[in-house]
């Protein structure tokens, strides 16, 4: 991790896609070990902001540093390696089973394969461990995404509407996970349309509108 006191520091960040400004000038600073919620109307730019932080889209103008990597000059691959991403659809390799996907991930990160069973158990997918991921239900796919992140244990977690399509047990588990992760010193940014369920977590809430942050609470 960098010596910088902030994990995320954006200043006047603009992201263009096909001439359209997905983000129209975002200033943002996030300290390590914090939980932030990004909210805002549909199309406000939440997903775009998270993608920028994950190094999945390049910065067009403005400047920024994420997890010690400069968004303009730095190596975005370095950045991606440090973040964990849970998107609207987390499908991975649809032709491989739950276990095979996680084995691939563990091997890629040189993690012990023994962790896989625990992780699968904790997200409640034991009985689907050998099912091809294409056949999973929406919520099960989301759970597999969480399992993947649990194996990764990144320093910056970027979660795009994590509650969507999780059932009640899944949400409770997720809340517990959020607490653990933040307590463990990682930084978490969540996009959501509802306030977080657990009041034990004390997130800062950023409201986006028109590709900018218009409110911080």
């Amino acid at each position: 991790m960098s010596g910088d006191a902030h994990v995320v520091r954006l200043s006047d960040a603009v992201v263009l896609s096909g001439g359209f400004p997905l983000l129209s000038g975002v200033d943002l600073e996030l300290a390590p070990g914090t939980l932030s919620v990004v909210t805002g109307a549909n199309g406000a730019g939440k997903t775009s902001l998270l993608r920028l932080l994950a190094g999945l889209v390049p910065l067009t103008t403005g400047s920024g540093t994420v997890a010690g990597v400069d968004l303009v000059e730095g190596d975005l691959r370095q950045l991606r390696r440090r973040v964990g991403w849970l998107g609207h659809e987390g499908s991975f390799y649809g032709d491989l089973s739950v276990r095979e996907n996680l084995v691939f991930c563990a091997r890629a990160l040189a993690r012990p394969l023994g962790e896989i069973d625990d992780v699968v158990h904790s997200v409640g997918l034991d009985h689907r461990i050998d099912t091809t991921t294409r056949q999973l239900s929406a919520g099960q796919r989301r759970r597999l995404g969480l399992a993947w992140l649990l194996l990764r244990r990144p320093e910056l977690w970027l979660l795009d509407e994590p509650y969507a399509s999780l059932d009640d047990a899944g949400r409770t588990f997720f809340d517990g996970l959020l607490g653990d992760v933040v307590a463990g010193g990682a930084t978490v940014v969540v996009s959501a349309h509802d306030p977080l369920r657990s009041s034990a977590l004390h997130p800062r809430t950023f409201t986006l509108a028109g590709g900018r942050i218009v409110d911080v609470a």
Partner: protein
Amino acid sequence: MIRTAMLVCAKDLRIELRSRVLLWQVVPFGVMALLLSGLALGPAHAGNSSAGPGLFYLVSLFVALLMINRSQGIESTPGTKASIATLGLDPAGIFLGKSLALAIELWVTGIVLLGGAVLVLHTALHGALLALPSILVTLAAMAAAGTLYGALTAGGDGAATLLPVLTLPAFAPLLIAGERSFSAALHGGSLWEWWVIVLVALVAYLAVGILLYGVLEES
């Protein structure tokens, strides 16, 4: 790099084995295309054994396009792309692994097609065996080039149709050199000359891929 390559290659081959697309679809397609190419040219040309190498490579080319498309397709479902990108795998390793998996698949199809050419196009068995090393190298070069171009077009609009446009010119020299070296094997010309050209192309594509694959991935 090598570890990543092995990992990626194993994953691609496993997906291939799982879906059996090679066995049930690509190989029959190749055999069919060989028969049809023969027919389209009419017995006068096709029966003539000198068309063998050309037709063999022409069909291999179309098979390769199908396989490259599939190999890239695996990586580019919306969910896959982001999650795999955040694994931060070494791009040179990804490139090598995908190229190797593709090469293995092309080798399998190539050997079947070669058998087909011997049976159907009266290509001399002896010559075909002599040509085998150069064929394997040519197909490997196609795999490397294909992986490189596949990454270039990945995620773009209409990737499936853009790919052939870009790869075709890149494959042209390979195709010519491969065909000449195959013909030389059949008719007793100098084997080495063209063989070396293909080998150089393979090494060049591998080098470019190892150096530049990272640049091609969506930054």
